[in-house]
């Protein structure tokens, strides 16, 4: 059967799906990894921010790393290449976004808080297993330092440099063994005197734009405002946001500490033992189907396939229009609506019987949020399948890192597939 979105099968480039296997039998140009477990892991492990999170089970493969590296290079290239000519325009956009989208910003900053919650929970696990490392403190300190630095009007590169040093010292003093992730090995080289700070900066930037994204909560939040913040000197609004990120981080730290206490007292749920239960699921038919639908949606938007259903064709044009106007938030929102529609159609056909699309999620500490960015929620039952993240060739600029509160004020609404 050809997987398509309408009553007819005009999607001539669509792949063939074997419902018995729950898999597509043919691949498109980018689907070389569809049957490869590591590519599925991408949806489970720290995908929104692979340098911000750890990979405790070690499933972050070399292949994935290579892919991220490629993506990171593209990202960094676009990031810096845009600086000179667009700095002024971006700065104006950022200023407008800050003024007109204050409410969205709060929501977005809350999402950052959630990032920290997840990270905190992971730190709790490390503590419990004797790998004690006060990551929360590190990140909140980094965030605070970033906020102060921005507020003092320091340049972006100075802030990054300062954070790199802090992270290097903190991680190495905590005895963390460098892993496959470039950030740690670069920092280790720096601490061991094998690399200059310039080398480290270069390697981190090459890794995945990580020098920027990994600079801590506040700078991460700032990065979410768009590459406009590179238009140095930083605007006062961005500096304020950074400060806000810092104060949120402090608040979250308190929350996280209470979470740790609950865990130690046996009241809280330790959701991190469920990773082993998730892994078999990611090889399930439903995840394969969800992935395939997601990619089919991408192909529709890219124009590689044509929708036979007129309403879907209209939705696709709407997304394409948003992208052409650089309204990436709007594009993301509409992408998810389209994806949801195709998932529902698949369910109507009898597939995905173990999947519920849930627009809200339960965070580790029991806070229910209506939306949050892309990463695994650690209760073991929720996956987030996002568009574009893993395709370095398509829609670089629509990636969530630039999707931001956006100059548009539109927020993407990720879909969450709960698997039974």
């Amino acid at each position: 059967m050809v997987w398509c979105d309408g009553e007819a099968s005009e999607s001539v480039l669509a792949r063939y799906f074997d419902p018995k296997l729950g898999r597509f039998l043919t691949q498109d140009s980018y689907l070389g990894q569809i049957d490869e477990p590591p590519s599925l892991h991408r949806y489970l492990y720290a995908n929104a921010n692979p340098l911000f999170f750890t990979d405790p089970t070690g499933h972050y493969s070399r292949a994935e790393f290579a892919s991220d590296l490629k993506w990171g290079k593209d990202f960094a290239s676009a990031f810096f290449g845009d600086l000179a000519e667009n700095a002024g325009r971006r700065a104006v956009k950022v200023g407008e976004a800050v003024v007109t989208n204050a409410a969205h910003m709060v929501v977005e900053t809350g999402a950052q808080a959630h990032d920290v919650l997840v990270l905190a929970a992971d730190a709790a696990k490390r503590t419990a297993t004797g790998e004690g490392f006060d990551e929360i403190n590190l990140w909140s300190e980094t965030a605070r330092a970033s906020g102060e630095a921005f507020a003092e009007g320091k340049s972006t590169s100075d802030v990054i440099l300062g954070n790199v040093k802090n992270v290097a010292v903190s991680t190495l003093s905590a005895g963390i063994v460098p892993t496959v992730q470039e950030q740690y090995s670069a920092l280790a080289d720096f601490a061991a005197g094998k690399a200059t700070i310039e080398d480290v900066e270069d390697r981190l930037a090459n890794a995945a734009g990580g020098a920027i994204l990994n600079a801590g909560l506040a700078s991460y939040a700032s990065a979410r405002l768009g590459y406009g913040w590179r238009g140095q000197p930083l605007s006062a609004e961005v500096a304020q946001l950074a400060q806000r990120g810092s104060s949120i981080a402090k608040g979250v730290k308190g929350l996280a500490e209470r979470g740790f206490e609950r865990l130690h007292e046996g009241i809280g749920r330790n959701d991190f033992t469920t990773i082993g239960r998730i892994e078999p699921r990611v090889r399930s038919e439903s995840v394969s189907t969800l992935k395939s639908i997601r990619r089919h949606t991408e192909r529709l938007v890219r124009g590689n396939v044509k929708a036979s259903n007129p309403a879907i064709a209209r939705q696709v044009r709407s997304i394409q229009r948003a992208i052409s106007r650089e309204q990436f938030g709007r594009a993301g929102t509409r992408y998810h609506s389209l994806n949801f529609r195709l998932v529902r159609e698949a369910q109507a056909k009898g597939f995905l019987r173990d999947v519920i699309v849930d627009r809200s999620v339960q965070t580790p500490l029991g806070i229910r949020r209506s939306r949050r960015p892309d990463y695994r929620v650690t209760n073991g039952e929720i996956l987030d399948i996002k568009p574009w993240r893993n395709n370095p060739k398509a829609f670089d600029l629509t990636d969530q890192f630039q999707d931001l509160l956006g100059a548009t004020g539109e927020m993407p609404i990720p879909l969450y597939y709960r698997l039974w």
Partner: protein
Amino acid sequence: MVIERLLGQRGDAREILRLPGDGYVDISDAEWGELEILRDLTFHRVVLAQQEIAVNFVDCLFRESRFRGLHSTGHFWGAGNRWERCDLSGINLADVISPANVFEQCAFEDVSLVGYKPAKTVFRRCRFSRLRLEGFRVVDNATLKGDPDLERRGARVAFVQCEFDQPYFSKCFFEGVAFDGCQVSGAVVEACDFRGVITDQPWWKADERSGDPFIAFLQELIDVTAERLGKESASYDALDGYRRDYVSGRTTSRDYSAVLYGGQVPDRELDLLEEIFDDIEGRYPF
């Protein structure tokens, strides 16, 4: 606590819930509004009333059960279920789907289904009183195993020996639906497409045969465009021109949005229309 106790369980729900006797038992509970999936359960003589329902049923059997005053806004669905001698009344479901379901001798009274998209579903010897079906379309999946009654008739949805009293059908595509030995009285039909219906006894009037939900859909788009942007707008002009071409047969393509996104319609008009179109499209069986 009903859902919590049933989650992950299989078998007789009465036993799992420790319900006494063999009489009807009300299992209504606020938790029916939670997004959950119950599977491989048998419900016998249970009553579910006045609930927002989001819990989904997979491979369940319902016998002699009563469902009253239930409503959903798009989350509820069921797959592979069998419903025998059940009463359903005052039900309002939106965007419901039902792959591989069988309804046997069930009574539907004042049931409204908006955006219903069934696949391989059979209604056998069921009674429908004041059924309201709006935006109905059969979903195709040749690989999905269905009831023998479907295979025999070459249908994807079948109503076999059913009675319809005062049904209301609006914006429905009936292609792939079999009506076999059904009695229909007092039916009201609006903008429905009966092409591809499998039956020896057409129950709809001849002038209703030509109904096309797509034209009704187009007209609604045009009306709302005129209301919001005026008849002088580029959007109105484009859509109205397309409608004329479609109705006259100059084009058979239903790709109505091509005329909007070709560069002639300004972005400010599209910004407004896209939100409105999302809503309208949701009420039609695409």
